């Protein structure tokens, strides 16, 4: 039998057993939402699995049941015994179908229309007070023994039944359901039974558990028992059915045994103990030259090794096992949804603990299904947005530090923040006001809440709001985290991080201050020995150790200091010879200084005691081959404890936001010297490249120095007009580029790049200078790049561009920015690019211009401004002002997706990061053409 199918059968049978019990419990406690959502999930899972295994008949029944359960969950229907019986009946039908499936490996032909219709009726709330015969339909006979024996005759019977059904006029026919699920042959013999059963007309909604249980209608009570025995028994078949079920207990189930993980864990512990004992014995043997124990011990050695390996294997499985179902799932989904989907799976051999694997299997399936259904667009839509027709879903699993990371990435449309917001409001999860104060990240979290689904339409693929909350619960159950990244239009990435608990890793054993530690081999890049006599030596920068490694400076971390180990053997020793474990975490590489390096060992990571969990330097501990306990270092923890680097962790998000806030005033400045006087500075973002020009290649053209640069002529402009270019040697040049034209500004020396708050304190008198500011503690002249650009363009490209502009009237640009620096910087820039610029320093002035009857083709506005912010300004312009049709471009140092959205909502047509000159010019051009096209 197909592996997939047999697994499905085992799993579904298990789920059904649980369902039987849970449904009965639900009937007793109808107000238990937890119970209800659990039931709903189980049915959803069954439906989902049926769906991608291509079992339409099963799927339909499950789908209809799910509908009813969905209504229960949403409170649209009250839970009553009739409805529960109906669902149980549906489950029985599923069971009988499964029995046939197991016997013949195919679904029996036909369908279950009457049952489904009844379920649908029930879902619509029309199933009120049906006749007892319908309310207590006879459960189908146990599909047990006949399942195999009657497999030949079955289809015939079914066909007959179908014929019967098709000839009867559907849902109004009350006795119909009685036989509907009876996909078996024993209908006739079982038929009388239900008559004797009391009609379950009592209203069991009474939360009085005991009498309710007592009054429990016959078909339900035995079902609980049958369910408990885990068999494929059909409910009402009572005791004899149970017995049959036991004997039958599918052939499939016999192939695998489910073992309690605790048992395996114990086994594992015992084997570890055995290994240690063997090691001790071998140790003793080595000291005795000739011993009669030698041969048997050798055997013991082998057997123990194999045993250890075997037990390890029982726990570890490659993640690929959990992925095995996915290609099929994706293929079927692609068909069903008319999409083209390419599924890529990387790192399928990453080993995971079996238990962990089991728990993430369902979440992964859900998430891939979500990506395919919600994430990826239909081919036409993809083409429209400039992507290839085939959408891609990438699964990637790998070890990182002490964790296993699983990424599910799609290149679809990303999460629709607005839709999530709407839905959240609709479902009463948050008010509009609350949403407004939330970050995108917080809003995205809503998709993890139960009952949340953004799919406009409930398909049978997904969109019922089970899914993501299951995913989250399951992952959190194993101590993992899930992170969502989404870029509008680019796709979304789900990153699941599972702690390495129980997983086996290879670790490097090191010693520091007399203590041994394990470092996961996975994060170790290389080992370097640093000693006074070797080529590598540790140098110190104000006490901070660094190492020169292949022309790069490697930051070093002293394990001794980090862990506050006091070295009883004297500190002098460490200076002679130190080993450096070069470690990589993400993109950050650093060295860990240790005293000695031993070898690598395969270790089983065990979690540290709860009272030690707060120490982030350790990811766990383990027992080494010699029986000693050793702590496992967590490179992530060390990196975040020592490095200044931004670790894109969930916890870091808040702080990053703060940092950007703080850095918004700062900008990178290029410091250089040119001519006499103070050092000069220019915003780094304006500089395209730094070049070193060989003066011998400088030619004179039109009386001005030019150099051939990338196949074009580039004018060279000195800061000091009287500067004389030497004939030979090399000269540093700042290259400013604009489209395919570039200009070189000749400087004497490039000094540094600094991040500083630019505060022009003295306005300049001289052309070409913006003014003076204190940068890096020195008075520095900030040059007006625009001025030099104008020089180069006017002299060199001037005439042709000028003509071009004269053909059409100059586009009028209104620039709103509170910073004089930017006004001064952008005005010449835009003028050079052929715009007629009017600059004002705040939104109020701009609106005053509007009042005054001025007209502009485009408005460029800063966002952060004192008084009226850019967003408010845009809203004011858009709502009722004379300029409501004038395109607006926002200019800001924050250019995150969220800002973009906010800007769009406020009314900006485009959003450009400050300092990005090219982007601004492009955006202006783009916006204006669009406007023209629209007009």
């Amino acid at each position, binding site marked *: 039998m197909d592996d997939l199918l047999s697994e499905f059968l085992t799993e579904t049978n298990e789920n059904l057993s649980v369902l039987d019990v849970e449904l009965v419990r639900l009937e007793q406690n109808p107000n238990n939402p937890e119970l209800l959502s659990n039931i709903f999930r189980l049915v959803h899972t069954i439906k989902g699995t049926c769906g991608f295994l291509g079992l339409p008949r099963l799927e339909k029944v499950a789908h209809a049941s799910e509908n009813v359960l969905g209504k229960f969950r949403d409170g649209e229907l009250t839970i009553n015994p009739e409805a529960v019986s109906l669902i149980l009946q549906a489950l029985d039908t599923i069971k009988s179908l499964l029995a046939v499936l197991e016997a013949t490996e195919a679904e029996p032909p036909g369908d279950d229309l009457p049952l489904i219709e009844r379920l649908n009726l029930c879902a619509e709330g029309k199933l009120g007070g049906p006749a007892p015969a319908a309310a207590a339909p006879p459960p189908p006979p146990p599909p047990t023994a006949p399942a195999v024996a009657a497999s030949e005759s079955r289809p015939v019977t079914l066909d007959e039944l179908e014929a019967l059904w098709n000839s009867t006029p559907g849902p109004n026919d009350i006795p119909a359901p009685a036989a509907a699920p009876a996909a078996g042959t024993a209908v006739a013999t079982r038929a009388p039974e239900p008559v004797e059963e009391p009609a379950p007309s009592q209203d069991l909604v009474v939360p009085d558990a005991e009498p309710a249980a007592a009054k429990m209608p016959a078909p339900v009570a035995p079902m609980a028992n049958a369910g408990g025995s885990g068999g494929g028994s059909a409910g009402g078949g009572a005791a004899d059915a149970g017995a049959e079920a036991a004997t039958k207990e599918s052939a499939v189930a016999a192939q695998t045994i489910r073992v309690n993980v605790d048992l395996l864990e114990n086994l594992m*512990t015992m084997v570890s103990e055995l290994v240690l004992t063997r090691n001790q014995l071998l140790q003793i043997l080595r000291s005795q030259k000739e011993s009669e124990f030698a041969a048997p011990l050798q055997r013991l050695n082998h057997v123990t090794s194999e045993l250890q390996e075997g037990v390890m294997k029982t726990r570890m499985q490659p993640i690929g096992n959990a992925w095995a179902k996915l290609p099929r799932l994706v293929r079927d989904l692609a068909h069903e949804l008319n999409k083209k989907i390419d599924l890529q799976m990387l790192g399928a051999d990453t080993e995971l603990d079996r238990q962990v694997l089991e728990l993430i299997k369902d979440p992964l399936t859900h998430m891939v299904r979500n990506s395919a259904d919600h994430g990826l667009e239909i081919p036409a839509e993809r083409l429209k947005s400039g992507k290839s027709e085939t959408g891609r879903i990438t699964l990637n699993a790998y070890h990182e530090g002490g964790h296993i990371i699983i990424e599910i990435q799609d290149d679809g449309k990303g999460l629709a923040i607005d839709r999530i917001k709407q839905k959240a409001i609709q479902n009463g999860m948050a008010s509009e006001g609350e949403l407004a104060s939330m970050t995108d990240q917080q809003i995205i979290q809503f998709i993890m809440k139960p009952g949340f689904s953004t799919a406009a339409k409930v398909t049978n693929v997904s969109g019922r709001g089970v899914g993501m909350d299951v995913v989250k619960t399951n992952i959190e159950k194993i101590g993992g985290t899930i992170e969502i990244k989404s870029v509008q239009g680019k796709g979304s990435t789900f990153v699941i991080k599972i702690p390495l608990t129980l997983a086996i890793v290879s670790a490097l054993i090191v010693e520091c201050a007399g203590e041994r530690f394990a470092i996961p081999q996975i994060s170790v890049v290389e080992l370097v020995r640093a000693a006074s006599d070797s080529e590598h030596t540790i140098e110190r920068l104000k006490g901070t150790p660094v190492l020169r490694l292949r022309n790069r400076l490697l930051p070093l971390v002293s394990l001794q200091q980090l862990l506050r180990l006091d070295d009883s053997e004297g500190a002098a020793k460490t200076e002679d010879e130190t080993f450096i474990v070069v470690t990589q975490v993400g993109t950050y590489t650093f060295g860990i200084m240790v005293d000695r390096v031993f070898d690598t060992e395969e270790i089983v990571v065990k979690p540290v*005691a709860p*009272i*030690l969990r707060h*120490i982030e330097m*350790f990811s766990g*501990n383990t027992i080494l081959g010699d029986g*000693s*306990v*050793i702590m496992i270092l967590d490179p992530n923890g060390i990196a975040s404890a020592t490095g200044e680097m931004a670790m894109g962790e969930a916890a870091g998000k808040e702080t990053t936001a703060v940092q950007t806030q703080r850095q918004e005033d700062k900008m990178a400045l290029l410091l250089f010297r040119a001519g006499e006087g103070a050092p000069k500075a220019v915003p780094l973002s304006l500089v395209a490249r730094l070049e070193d020009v060989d003066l011998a290649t400088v030619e004179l053209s039109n009386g001005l120095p030019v150099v051939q640069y990338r196949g074009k002529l580039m004018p060279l402009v000195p800061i000091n007009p009287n500067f004389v270019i030497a004939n030979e040697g090399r000269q540093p040049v700042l290259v400013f580029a604009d489209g395919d034209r570039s200009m070189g500004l000749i400087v004497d020396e490039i000094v540094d790049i600094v991040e500083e708050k630019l505060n022009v304190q003295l306005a300049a008198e001289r052309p070409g200078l913006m003014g003076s500011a204190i940068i890096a503690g020195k008075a520095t002249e900030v040059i007006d790049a625009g001025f030099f650009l104008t020089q180069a363009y006017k002299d060199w490209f001037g005439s042709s561009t000028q003509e071009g502009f004269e053909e059409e009237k100059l586009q009028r640009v209104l620039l709103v920015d509170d910073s004089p620096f930017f006004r001064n910087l952008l005005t010449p820039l835009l003028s050079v690019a052929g715009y007629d610029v009017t600059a004002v320093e705040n939104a109020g002035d701009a609106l005053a211009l509007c009042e005054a009857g001025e007209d502009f083709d485009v408005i460029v506005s800063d966002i952060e401004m004192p008084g009226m912010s850019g967003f408010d300004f845009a809203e004011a312009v858009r709502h009722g002002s004379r300029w409501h049709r004038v395109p607006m471009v926002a200019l800001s140092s924050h250019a995150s997706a969220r800002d973009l959205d906010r800007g769009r909502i406020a009314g900006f047509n485009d959003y450009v990061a400050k300092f990005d000159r090219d982007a601004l010019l492009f955006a202006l051009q783009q916006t204006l053409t669009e406007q023209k096209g629209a007009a």
Partner: protein
Amino acid sequence: MSNAKLPSTVRKSRGDDIVVSGNQDFVTMTIADQMFGIPVLQVQDVLGHQRITRIPLAPPEVAGSLNLRGRIVTAIDVRLRLGLTGRPKDKPGMSIVVDLRGELYSLMVDSVGEVLSLTKEDFERNPATLDPRWREVSTGIYRLNGQLMVVLDVPRLLNFTTIETA
């Protein structure tokens, strides 16, 4: 030695099963010449001197961890936990292994004595003047012949969150 003096409310105030039932068995131990007891059913093992791996950055009361038949056990220096000075290096000491919510802890003490079966008649609640640190981790006192035995409450002894506040 009049048992009648024992206030009847004491028996209920703690509500622990120690007080409720008749005789209780305790594993006794000595720390800095003071006798302590732990209900025998909570004790998993008694160990002699063990090799312990230090755990950097851990709270001072955590002496380290050790391997007990393949399980990692966290060793707690009870002396430090009780606010006493550390054990002199030359005395090896012993340990009592207890289980708390599935985790094993080894309580390092000076020596482990015999198992005593004590009647509730001899039980008394902590004197109000007892050092707050001790009162925190003790359920009460047994009056024995010639000495007093402090009953240690294992969950509270291992509840390290209270240490910072104490």
